[in-house]
């Protein structure tokens, strides 16, 4: 912290109103706003990636998947292993990027298969029990998954609790730490390649899923099933199969989020604790948006991402409370649930007893 910032922090205690105005003026500086906006968009992309699978599954099946975080973590390790296998040091930047997309598709396929298998073998017997048991089962699965990953990591001599560094070397040169550029033409905003990549990636995934839900026949089934399962079934659609597909897809998307985070040591990085770290913000985004609504999740991810970026900026410059961004994210959850218990776009019946 610079001396001036430190002084600002103290001034705040002396004259709260004056310093609030000061902070606001500081924030309204175009350079600051654009910086926070870009940081916020990158964070929002990550949030939407980790939450979208969760919301699809809940929307159709009413199952809150507690193993979602662990599955993201598995995706991160799997993606890391595959990318290390696919990328050789001599490869050029764009070949690396291509290899990454091949890896993403592979992770999506593998984890979708895993998810479908889980649905058929473990979740399906629980549909006629209270929703509590689905939460419990998936919660138990996190224990098993985390431990299995630990065993595998032990075999390969990788530290489970620290971020896995090896896959970071497979990134194209325009994504690493050294890729950060100060854009003089844009008020001196600092951007690194990873942020741009995340924003584009998140945008593509959001649009892709939206197209899938609204433009394909299967998406129609899923939307119909979310509205009224029995009616959909009565119309001759195999909802049971749709459940399997959607649960698989939800898990697959968790894996894709993991593969993305595996390349981002700042917002993620493959490690076993990543699971719990990812699970809570994913819950916040999904609940704030309204459980099971796709549009709500995207909007909530933007809100949470932007708030997070603003609070991080506030902490970096004015407030000496390191937990501020995290704290405010959970406050958003609490406040939204108090003011609008179904979330921003939620429907009343979903998720109750």
């Amino acid at each position, binding site marked *: 912290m610079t001396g001036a910032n430190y002084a600002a922090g103290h001034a705040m205690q002396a004259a709260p109103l004056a310093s609030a105005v000061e902070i606001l003026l500081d924030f309204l500086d175009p350079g600051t706003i654009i910086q926070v906006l870009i940081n916020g968009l990158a964070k929002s992309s990550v949030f939407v990636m980790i939450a979208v699978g969760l919301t699809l599954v809940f929307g159709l099946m009413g199952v809150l998947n507690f193993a979602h975080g662990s599955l993201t973590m598995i995706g991160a390790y799997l993606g890391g292993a595959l990318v290390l296998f696919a990328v050789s040091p001599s490869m050029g930047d764009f070949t690396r990027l291509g290899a990454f997309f091949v890896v993403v598709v592979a992770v999506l396929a593998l984890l979708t298969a895993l998810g479908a298998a889980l649905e058929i073998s473990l979740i399906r017997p629980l549909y006629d029990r209270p929703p509590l048991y689905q*939460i*419990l089962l998936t919660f138990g*699965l996190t224990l098993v998954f985390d*431990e299995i990953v630990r*065993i595998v990591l032990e075999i390969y001599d990788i530290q489970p609790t620290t971020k896995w560094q090896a896959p970071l070397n497979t990134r194209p040169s325009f994504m690493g730490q050294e890729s950060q550029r100060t854009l003089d033409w844009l008020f001196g905003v600092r951007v690194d390649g990873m942020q741009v990549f995340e924003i584009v990636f998140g945008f593509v995934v959001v649009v892709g899923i939206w197209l899938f839900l609204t433009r394909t026949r299967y998406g129609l089934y899923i939307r119909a099933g979310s509205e009224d399962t029995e009616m959909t079934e009565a119309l001759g659609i195999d909802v049971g199969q749709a459940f399997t597909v959607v649960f698989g897809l939800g898990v697959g998307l968790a894996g894709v989020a993991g593969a993305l985070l595996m390349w981002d040591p700042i917002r993620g990085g493959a490690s076993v604790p990543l699971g719990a770290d990812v699970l809570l913000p994913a819950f916040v985004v999904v609940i704030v948006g309204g459980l099971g609504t796709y549009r709500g999740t995207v909007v909530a991810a933007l809100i949470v991402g932007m708030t997070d970026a603003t609070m991080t900026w506030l902490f970096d410059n004015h407030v000496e409370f390191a*937990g501020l961004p*995290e704290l405010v994210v*959970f406050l958003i959850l609490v406040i939204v649930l108090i003011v609008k218990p179904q979330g921003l776009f939620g429907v009343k019946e979903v998720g109750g007893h």
Partner: protein
Amino acid sequence: MATDADEADPGEGSGPLGATTDVGGGDPLAGEPWYRRYLWDHRVHAAVVVLFALYPFAYSGLTEAMPATMTTLLPGITVMVGVLYFGLFAMSFDFVSGYTGYLDFGHAAFYGIGAYFVILVANDKVPLLDPSTPFMFSLVIAGLLAALVALVIGAVSFRLTGVYFAMITLGFAQVIYVLMSNWDYLGDNPRSGIAVNTSMHPEGFEVGVPFVDALNMQIASANFVGETLSTELAGHVIALSAPEVSYFMIGLVVGFCYFAMQRVIHSPFGKVMIAIRENEERAEAIGYDTFKYKMGAFAISAFFAAVGGALFAGYRRSVDPDNSLFFLVAGDALLAAIIGGFGTLAGALFGFLFFEFLGELLANNFVSRGGESVPDGLLPYLRDVLGEGTLSTTLFGDVTVRTVLDVLFNGRAELYIGVLFVLFVLYVPNGILGTLRLWLGGTVAKKLPERIGSRLRGGQADPGPPDD
């Protein structure tokens, strides 16, 4: 139970203690004073308490007789102390979630409040409370504070149900977690927790009746801090280490709390809690203000959770955000409650005992016993027993018995607990105690003596009069 009998035959015309004709088929203790009836009703509880009380002696006896086997098999006293205070927390979780059906994912907040509060009082960080405040006082105040926080959280949370309730309580708990792990008023490095100021409190905290020296014992995990005891009883020297003294003192508090919660569950208030779980709309339709009952249950549960947390911090003499306030701490309570039996109260403690037993069994430690290093855990035990010859036997390829054992048992407790938990959710949804109840057709405390009694009398259904 006395109240049940009163309610069962109000029209008999006999006084509360004179119910000579009982619906349940012969009340053996009709006309006896209430405490004898209470003891008789709770004879299974009493037996369990006696078993717990005898455990330290059994443990030291058995480990002396068969050091390797018993040290591996049985959880040590320090682990058992953990079973007691965390068991209390798990029971308090079961009290609200198992009985009203509202899943409180933020229950760790109350455990953490209790734990932080007693240490902050001891470190002179709480205004109005002197650092020399007796531990028992700060423990009760911690409980009341947690109950107050529960009322605030509950006031907004109980408007929601199901998943949303779980999520808003989780949100509140995480807010408290983030606050406490970043607030530097608490200590130098709040993220890694706070510890008791040893210059202010060189000795362990006293559990017992405040200001009566003879009725207090110190709790601490280490002998040099806590109190050891050595007395002669009928020619035998009984020497208790500090953890053993703590085991008994914490056990007393936990036992007291259990019976208090059990009393509430079996009161009309508890019946309404169950009614809310089974069908809240119907309970409301009958005329109960369910919101008030939920708030009451939440506050009571928070109180006991904080007591559990206070005992935990008092015994460990330190606390950090991740072992008290983090949401996964409530997850452990949930696991314990489900394995033991959701909605059975005592089941939560037995569930946690079962966990710790598994964890201890699968540990990979050596402990010193009588100057000798003794294996504590299945892996070192098997290595010890099997010997080098068997261990290096090749099974196939370059896989030896040793590698197989390593992969299977080296610190894998979490894996087995997870698998077991999943199996429980799928196939034993009622948990250990719940299944036992279904099998007996009533609570274990009530039905087990009847069963045993009828077996002893050769299939006679009703329990006969007591022998005296």
